[in-house]
């Protein structure tokens, strides 16, 4: 049986390796991980990708036995929307307001992000691009809520080019900086993408 050693790899690499194996036609294989985050991300991925996952403990980590469930691949797609928010969902936020009206838009984005920590279904990742980075940096009105989301294990990523453009590089208050490679990986990883 094929074994993927994903120990020490940064997110989203373990999930991508898992996805590639399934896409390559592997029906049953093992993935070795040494951290809770990839384990949970792979679990979520399996749920959304019609696979079973069995976890066993190894020294310093876990062995994940992945089994593709029976059924044709074409059956997977119609199921995806139903599973939307319970599987991997990425929010893409490209502005510091919702809609075009400045005043109302800013109130709406604040209300939106401040509600997320108490939402039953949360995204697994939020990517901030362009003016969206005003929400993750100093003087943002939603830093507390974003910090709470981070504590829940949700990835908060801000575009480095955008931080640089707005001279906010040293003012990032929550989450980490990302680049276009990571952004494209995230958008094409099989996650449900919702643009706010």
């Amino acid at each position: 049986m094929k074994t993927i050693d994903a120990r020490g790899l940064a997110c989203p690499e373990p999930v991508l390796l898992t996805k590639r194996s399934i896409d390559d036609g592997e029906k049953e294989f093992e993935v070795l991980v040494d951290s809770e985050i990839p384990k949970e991300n792979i679990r979520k991925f399996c749920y959304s990708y019609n696979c079973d996952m069995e976890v066993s403990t190894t020294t310093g980590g876990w062995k994940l036995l992945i089994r593709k469930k029976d059924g044709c691949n074409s059956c997977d797609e119609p199921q995806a929307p139903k599973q939307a928010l319970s599987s991997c969902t990425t929010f893409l936020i490209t502005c510091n307001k919702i809609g075009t009206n400045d005043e109302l838009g800013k109130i709406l984005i604040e209300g939106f992000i401040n509600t997320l920590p108490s939402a039953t279904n949360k995204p697994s990742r939020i990517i901030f691009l362009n003016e969206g980075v005003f929400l993750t940096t100093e003087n943002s009105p939603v830093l507390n809520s974003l910090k709470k989301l981070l504590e829940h294990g949700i990835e908060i990523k801000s575009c480095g080019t955008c931080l640089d453009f707005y001279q906010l590089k040293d003012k990032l208050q929550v989450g980490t900086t990302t680049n276009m490679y990571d952004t494209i990986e995230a958008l094409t990883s099989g996650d449900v993408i919702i643009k706010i």
Partner: protein
Amino acid sequence: MSAEFFIIFQSTHDVIKAKKALQKAYIAHEIIPTPKKVSAECGMSLKIEKTVLDQALEILRLKGVLFRIDLL
């Protein structure tokens, strides 16, 4: 932890007016959707900590904003 209150307004325009006034006075606040127990409408409220509540209410009264408060 300090008790939290929310201030409910009659219109979105009042929420915006109140937010601007509180920002100007550096009073910490958060915009939250009006809790469902109070209103089923899609309204926004301001969440305020008890320690700055009196100060916030005074500012809103001076601004002539119509509001009511409730415990979160």
